[in-house]
């Protein structure tokens, strides 16, 4: 039996899986490994309210389900009565007709009940699904960037897709099925008990055995299901990442290696699933056997009593039919048990997302000053991405409205980080950042976004048209305004050369444009937003010198009256700034105009010298 093996390959991949898991857990503190409790009160309290708007429908669904259970479970009983009427000598035909009429009624009723139940459940389920997804999405929009630094997009996505689906199934059909099973079971128990106490007790006596077996089985199954979940998570995030990075992979000719590695990870998933499948299948023969034992007990005891004349055949037939019905819901409940755990775990993960507090939260009573003048102050700002490792230390910086300041410094000095504090992408660890004297923590998100625009170092474009991308910050902009913005940053010529001009469709991340072109569009987007404060983070680093020069000329006009923070490695672009700040290791070490800094003979002068020595000037020698 070769397929019982695979242990070796499994061992391999479990290791890889475990490592990757451990890392991801360490990074974001999210634990995806738990299989939930059977009932998690916190989850239910949080998520049950999603059913509230549909109270009537939920009640109808419940009613339909109870009705369906009762009518369908009553069927064998009625059949028994019918048979008794028939075997009686002489046969009781009128009674037979009556019972048959009831049977027909019940069949129709059970159809109607089920129809109501399924329609309502479908309605509820889809509405709950939609509402949950929407709320999660809305909440995700509020979470701060530090959250996205730590959390893998693929994992966030799986919470909003598969976990939500699992939870929705639990809230609607899952809960109902359990109720239906319990109702059915109760009907059967009552009927059996009232029909014949002795036979009923005989039937029930296998139940404790079943319970013990199921409990024992649960212990093992639980671990198996945890592994299944882990394994598939790793499979999915591997695919996600390796598709996003496929260009690098092909460039480095890593495909074969990756295919092998993925094979191992995938194998781990297969093994975990097959193990779980074996466990699921193993419970079948046990239940089967117990049903048979119950049936034979009833047949021996019942048969003897029929022989002895103390039991009618009808009752015996009803019992034989009911035993099947008795074990069906039990079997179903066993299956539901793991479903429940899984869904509860999914629910816990949803609640975890919904309850994540944004590090950068909208103030309770946000200020919305009508007019921003553009003064920016940093007072004793210290910032850490990771606790204990300050990236900015005690920054004091005061920018007057309309002033242009430049930030220069070695790579990794903290320039981007400093700039990211102005639009409040992150909150300071110490000290405060103020705009027009108001702490950014008191400004509303929209006010802040209107006041500050950032042209980021790596431009991100959305799929959609060029126009939509440029107008992203101001949806109501006219075509002329969009064109003006594109012209200001020198993007217009190439856009107009595109096949559909401003209506050309960009692929995901704007991949069908060159990097320089993407950067220009991101630039135009910030310009169109018409902010009082403009942050240019290497905004023209990937743009050619001619375009850059053109942009710079245009910027002169554009920046007039605006406060601007320019980050650049090409010193030629920062020379015109009113003030240049040199950042070194998270501190401002030099400050002044170009000429002053050169005269100072410090870091700036050295940077400038490198540029000069290796630059265009040295040909003259």
């Amino acid at each position, binding site marked *: 039996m070769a397929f019982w093996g695979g242990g070796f390959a499994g061992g391999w991949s479990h290791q890889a899986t475990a490592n990757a898991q451990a890392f991801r857990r360490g990074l974001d503190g999210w634990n995806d490994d738990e299989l939930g409790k059977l009932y998690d009160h916190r989850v239910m309290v949080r998520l049950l309210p999603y059913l509230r708007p549909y109270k009537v429908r939920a009640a109808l669904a419940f009613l339909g389900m109870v009705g369906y259970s009762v009518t369908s479970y009553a069927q064998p009983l009625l059949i028994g009565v019918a048979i008794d009427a028939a075997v009686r000598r002489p046969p009781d035909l009128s009674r037979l007709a009556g019972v048959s009429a009831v049977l027909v009624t019940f069949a129709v009723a059970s159809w109607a009940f089920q129809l109501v139940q399924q329609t309502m459940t479908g309605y509820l389920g889809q509405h709950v699904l939609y509402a949950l997804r929407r709320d999660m999405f809305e909440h995700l929009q509020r979470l701060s960037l530090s959250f996205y630094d730590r959390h893998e997009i693929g994992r966030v996505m799986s919470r909003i897709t598969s976990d939500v689906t699992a939870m929705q199934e639990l809230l609607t059909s899952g809960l109902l099925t359990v109720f239906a099973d319990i109702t059915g079971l109760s009907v059967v128990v009552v009927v059996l008990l009232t029909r014949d106490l002795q036979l009923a007790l005989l039937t029930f006596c296998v139940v404790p055995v079943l319970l013990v077996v199921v409990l024992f089985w649960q212990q093992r199954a639980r671990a198996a299901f945890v592994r299944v979940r882990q394994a598939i998570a790793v499979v999915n995030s591997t695919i996600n990442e390796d598709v996003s990075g496929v260009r690098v992979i092909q460039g*480095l000719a890593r495909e074969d290696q990756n295919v092998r590695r993925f094979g191992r990870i995938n194998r781990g998933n297969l093994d975990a699933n097959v193990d779980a499948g074996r466990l*699921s299948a193993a419970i079948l023969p046990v239940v089967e056997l117990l049903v048979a034992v119950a049936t034979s007990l009833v047949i021996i005891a019942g048969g003897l009593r*029929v022989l002895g004349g103390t039991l009618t055949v009808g009752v015996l037939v009803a019992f034989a039919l009911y035993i099947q019905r008795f074990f069906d819901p039990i079997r179903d409940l066993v299956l539901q048990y793991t479903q429940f755990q899984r869904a509860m775990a999914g629910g816990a993960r949803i609640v975890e997302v919904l309850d994540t507090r944004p590090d950068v939260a909208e103030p309770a009573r946000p200020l919305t000053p009508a007019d921003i003048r553009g003064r920016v102050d940093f007072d004793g700002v210290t910032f850490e991405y990771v606790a204990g490792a300050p990236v900015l230390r005690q920054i004091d910086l005061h920018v007057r409205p309309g002033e242009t300041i430049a930030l220069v410094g070695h790579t990794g000095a903290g320039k981007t980080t400093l700039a990211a504090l102005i639009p409040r992408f992150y909150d300071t660890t110490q000290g405060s950042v103020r705009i027009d004297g108001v702490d950014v923590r008191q400004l509303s998100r929209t006010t802040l976004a209107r006041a500050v625009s950032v042209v980021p170092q790596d431009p991100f474009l959305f799929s959609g048209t060029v126009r939509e991308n440029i107008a992203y910050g101001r949806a109501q902009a006219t075509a002329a305004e969009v064109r003006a913005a594109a012209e200001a940053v020198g993007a217009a010529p190439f856009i107009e050369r595109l096949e559909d001009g401003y209506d050309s469709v960009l692929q995901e991340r704007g991949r069908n444009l060159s990097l*320089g072109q993407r950067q220009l569009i991101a630039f135009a987007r910030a310009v169109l937003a018409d902010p009082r404060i403009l942050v240019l983070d290497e905004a023209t680093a990937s743009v*050619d010198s001619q375009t850059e020069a053109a942009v710079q000329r245009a910027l002169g006009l554009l920046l007039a009256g605006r406060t601007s923070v320019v980050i650049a490695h090409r010193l030629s672009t920062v020379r015109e700034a009113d003030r240049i700040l040199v950042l070194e290791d998270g501190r401002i070490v030099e400050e002044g105009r170009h000429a002053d800094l050169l005269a100072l003979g410090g870091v700036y002068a050295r940077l400038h010298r490198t540029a000069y020595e290796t*630059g265009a000037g040295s040909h003259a020698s």
Partner: protein
Amino acid sequence: MLRLLRFLAPYRVRLLAAVGSLLGSGAFVLLTPQLIRWAINIGVDTRQHDRRLLVVVALLIVASALLRGFFAFWQQYLGEWIAQRVAYDLRNEIYERLQRLSFAYHDRAQVGEIMSRVTQDVESIRMYVSMGLLRLAYVLVLVFVALVLMALSNLRLALVAWGFLPVIGTVGIVAASRLRPVWLRIQQEQGRLGTVLQENLSGMRVVKAFARHDLELRKFEREARALFDDSYRSTRVMALLSPAMTGLGALAIVATVWLGAHDIAAGRLTAGDLSAFLIYLAILQMPVRTLGFMVNISARAHSSGRRIYEILDAECAVREKPGAIELREVRGHVRFENVSFGYDLLSPVLKGIEVDAPPGSVVALLGPSGSGKSTVVNLLPRFYDPTGGRITVDGVDLRDVTLRSLRETVGIVHQDVFLFMDTIRENIRYGKPDASNEEVEAAARTARIHDFIAGLPDGYDTWVGERGVTLSGGQKQRVSIARTLLRDPRILILDDSTSSVDMETEHLIQQALAELMRGRTTFVIALRLRTVRRADQILVLDRGRIVQRGTHGELLPHPGLYRQIYELELGDQSERRGAALPETAAGG
């Protein structure tokens, strides 16, 4: 759909075993009613006072359950095994396909969409194989045998049951045909929702910067709403379908009871026969009830199969020729002969590109944004194939060599950096997983990133976030330079790979590279003259054509793009320098 059978083919033996177990368990499922019938008939038949016979029947029932359980286990387990295996094979094939599909495919594909196919569509195929295909076979066998057995025991009653069958079948088929287009739409909508989500989450910085949560929410709501509508539609079809099936089943039972009871009354039938009959019907109810479900999942699997095959069948624009040769002992003589290229057929991006790069030379490409510099160098590792002309390395056409050996020869540092969510060490040795720590450090030193890494608390074992978010722009770029250098390629391409690095560091990197580039053919793309001046050959591109070529010294005297750029950058420098540093100017 039929093509999915290919995925089942390797598991023929197990499939047969599964079908065998299925038949076995079916047989024992069908046997039980016969035993019960026998028992009840014994009970009723007062002439036959043999109590031992009852015990025998009871034991037989237990024995048959044991066997049935045995078969049920194997049926279920093997079914699951095969289904998981098919999903496994599908994932492997899709993954491999995705890894090999050329850039042209990935330019158009969306990650969210691909993910929805790899997850949801593969899952629905898995469900179909385990619960649809095998269960369907089981149900069909069960129904058929049960019907035959019923006919054998009482033809009249059997005819009643048979009468219901076509009705139920028709309902199922009608529902399936209604569901199939709905499922296709649902899956497309799931893909789109995934794409919107993926894009929103990856572009969160921009969303926040412009506070466009409202717009994003609208986009999301639109897709979620569409998905809602179609999902709801499918649940409505299902809500009509399954009760109808159960209801018809229940009616069949009533009809049987009615007729059967009359037969008993007339003495033509025993109670045992009737209960066996009813148990058969009860047994049939299960498949009938799940028939709705099976209709649903096979409709779903049908459209999932199509979506998966869209990936598996995608044309790979760059293919290896059969019998392609290994590129070995490369000297590094690269030639572009009248190469033209366009990303789509309509608009050519490169026209008549001629390049001759002798072994060990440094070729610089310069030109405005979008002039086609990256495009030129992307042809060299065959990320795309030229639409006209040819490219040779040491005289061999690129299309005649294996992709692997070509890409081992050509190392490229891409313009936009992509790092993996892994440690810095693993990122640097991504292209050469067996590299030693010393090699990794040497490459990091050349790329001037070693000191930074060494200064981190975890050093080379520091994890970087998705796409490298936890590093600064320049740090990412340098890690990616180190990653390519580690592979020690004969032909090196640097696509504007120091744009985010400060000048001093850039200068240091260049010095280190100069050492390294000796003996290698190197292509350097740069947007500033400063970086390209020392090249053996400078190609100036404009709108897809090489408009000027030569060394710095040759190009400078002629009016043209190069000179314009030069004057722009130089003018910029000397003018300021004149003002700020008179002494230096005087010295020059």
